[in-house]
């Protein structure tokens, strides 16, 4: 046992000594690996950062554990024929469907409904174009995780009595009430003055579209204002993440029962949930990653070549030493191991420093510019494994060359 230990320990000590003997050279070799590893991790981190930025924005807009049933809904692309089929088959969703879902979906913590349209608002000669007018039930704030910065969201009795009240988004507030308290003032929608009861916190933009150009009004008032021909979007929320899928299934089943669908018929409504949207985002960023990440790995390969080159130099320089060790009884394995340890030590240390550097730079960028960078364990492990592997591969040829040296030739050289 002790001999096995000392065998590895000796090899490691010799490797370390030779690295320390050429500090500058080792340092330069390390830098190649460091740059390689750091660039892989950083590029991956910015792609993951993009992903989590979009996912966060999506969940900010949609709310966690949230699903939606509407007449036609899908994530991603759908062919023209499928769309037309849905358009022909699917029925309008009504208040009846909402009541049914509230009663039947027992695992749903909340069920609400929404309808939306766009209007241009005009107030005191100021224009605000394309404001989203959203008719909501009172529980929609909870379902979609809305944050109200001033006042409150709509109340249940305001919805039942279809009162002329509204909650405005930040864009509306800044356009019409800059520096004022908008609560209890009014905005006109299609000429109907609405009393403002709350202001939603600023949500920012998604893909260049403002998420704050909104006015929420009671769903009943929405129908009074714009007519009752609208199809409702039903929104549900699962009580927790573990039950999310089963809740969605339950909601789907109860809607199928309500619509009297036979078991072989397709759904005549669309159901989307937050996770489908996130999968779509993952697909998109995944596609970017498969193109860009391999390009960054090229620099790691180049770093590996540098390691190999330096190891070859090291073998050539130490021909005499190797000859001597062999003459004194060192076996091939030991020589091989000595050089392999040296090269993989170099790349592993380089990899470790690279990771630290990448994490530091990522922090700095996030701190300095506000761009989200997510250093993911996957790419850290991948690049460490890759750099370690490079160390072994790049060290293998020089190590074998050293191990194969004939001691007599080696000793007479120089």
């Amino acid at each position: 046992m002790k001999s096995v230990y000392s065998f590895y320990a000796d090899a490691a000590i010799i490797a370390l000594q030779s690295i320390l003997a050429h500090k500058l050279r080792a340092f330069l070799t390390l830098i190649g690996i460091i740059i390689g590893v750091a660039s892989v991790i950083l590029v991956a981190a910015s792609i993951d950062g993009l992903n989590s930025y979009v996912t966060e924005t999506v969940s900010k807009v949609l709310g966690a554990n949230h699903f939606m049933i509407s007449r036609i809904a899908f994530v991603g692309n759908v062919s023209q024929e499928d769309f037309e089929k849905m358009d022909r088959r699917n029925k309008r969703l009504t208040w009846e469907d909402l009541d049914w879902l509230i009663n039947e979906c027992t695992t749903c913590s909340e069920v609400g409904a929404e309808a939306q349209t766009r209007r241009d608002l005009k107030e005191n000669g100021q224009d605000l174009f394309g404001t989203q007018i959203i008719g909501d039930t009172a529980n929609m704030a909870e379902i979609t995780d809305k944050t109200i910065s001033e006042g409150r969201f709509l109340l249940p009795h305001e919805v039942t009595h279809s009162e002329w009240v509204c909650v405005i988004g930040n864009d509306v507030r800044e356009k019409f009430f800059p520096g004022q308290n908008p609560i209890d003032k009014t905005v006109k929608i299609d000429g109907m003055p609405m009393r403002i009861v709350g202001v939603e916190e600023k949500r920012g933009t998604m893909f260049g579209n403002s998420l704050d150009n909104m006015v929420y009004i009671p769903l009943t008032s929405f129908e009074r204002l714009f007519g009752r021909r609208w199809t409702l979007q039903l929104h549900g929320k699962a009580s927790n993440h573990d039950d999310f899928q089963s809740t969605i299934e339950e909601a789907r089943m109860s809607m199928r029962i309500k619509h009297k669908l036979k078991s072989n018929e397709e759904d005549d409504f669309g159901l989307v949930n937050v996770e489908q949207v996130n999968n779509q985002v993952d697909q998109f960023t995944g596609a970017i990653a498969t193109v860009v990440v391999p390009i960054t790995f090229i620099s790691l390969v180049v770093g590996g070549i540098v390691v190999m080159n330096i190891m070859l130099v090291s073998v050539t320089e130490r021909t005499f030493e190797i000859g001597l060790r062999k003459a004194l009884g060192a076996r091939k394995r030991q020589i091989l191991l000595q050089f392999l340890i040296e090269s993989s030590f170099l790349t592993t240390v380089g990899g470790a420093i690279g990771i630290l550097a990448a994490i530091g730079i990522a922090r700095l960028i996030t701190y300095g510019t506000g761009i989200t960078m997510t250093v993911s364990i996957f790419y850290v492990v991948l690049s460490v494994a890759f750099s370690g592997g490079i160390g072994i591969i790049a060290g293998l040829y020089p190590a074998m060359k050293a191990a194969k040296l004939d001691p007599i030739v080696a000793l007479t050289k120089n």
Partner: protein
Amino acid sequence: MKIRWNRFFPIETILMALANLRGNKFRSILTVVGIVIGVLTVIVIASLLTGVRNNIVQIVEEYGVNNIYAFHLSTGPRIGNRDRSEYKRKPLTSEDGDVIRAQASAVEDVANTAFVWGIDNTISYNGFTYKQADLQGASPSYARVANLSIREGRFFNDIDDDHRRNVMVLGVNAANAMFPNSSKIAGSEVQMAGKTWEVVGVLEKRKGSFFGENEEDNLVLIPFQTVRKLSARSDFVMLVIRAKTGQLPQAMDQIEEILRRQRGVKFNEPNNFDLGTADRFIEQFDSIFGAIGLIAIAISSVGLLVGGIGVMNIMLVSVTERTREIGVRKAIGARRRDIVSQFLFEAMTLTFMGGLIGVVLAIGISYLLMLLLPSLPASIPLWAIVAGLGVSIAVGLIFGVWPARKASRLDPIEALRYE
């Protein structure tokens, strides 16, 4: 007078460097490979990016470099939705086109196109149906203004337009989908929106393509006035205006002035319409694409950087190994400058060779890509080749300076004693 050529181009030093590289073949090859990979990546990426850009330029210019597109909404690539306030603007009309034709001296011709909506654009013929039609209305002058070439039959004439006839000109995709093996398409009668339409012509396939696709090939054109009869709601008109050769800027100014007058824009208000040219589309594209290209090239040049560090490392080793040789050279009168240039040229020779091989391989790979994936655009830009070679020499220069200076500073006495 004897000109000392070797001052400008030190042949002897280069020969010495080459001999030295030959002496350490394997080491040199490995060092070169690092540079080769670096240069290769940069050039292949650059050539893919250039290929995409060339395709865009080709598509845009195929419509005509002297064309101006006037529309009431802003056009071109943008992030996010159009500003909703633009939808308040009133569309351009064919009268605007008539006024431009009559009053703008730098304008050769004007064509009206109309976007058609509100009708079912499914075209059926003999059991075949075609749903992807990009249905547009166009005035008879459109064929000339937009450089359309007709494969078969004819384009609309004024009679078709004035009488609002139900005739159509098919794009190549629609023609191929509905008439898979018929050689005579013109004169056939197809069904669309519950009416019978006579196909009077078929367009030639557009030459430019973006990943093998060109939207134009999906076109199905009907006379401009027929659109008015078919769907009164389709009132979005785009004017395609051809300027006289070399008079594009004048034409732009004249059109802007006429349209402002026509639309009653006050002098202190911005234009409530959009004038696009081929150049502007390309510019807009470049402003988006340039950033992507910069990031891609930056990422791919990391490999080159690592390769450069490898060169520096090997040159340092080389200096250490040849300490005695340097000592001898110095002892018999070599100046610092000579030693510096010896090692600098050695490094540059090394990286230049890498650059050369990298460029050759990159050209090979780009051609291979074009051969294997014809839809993938790739075009090797000359600047990338020149830059590849230049950068590789520069890498040698930058990463060779330190080892070379180190060598030149050696004390000959110490160096000769070095074991």
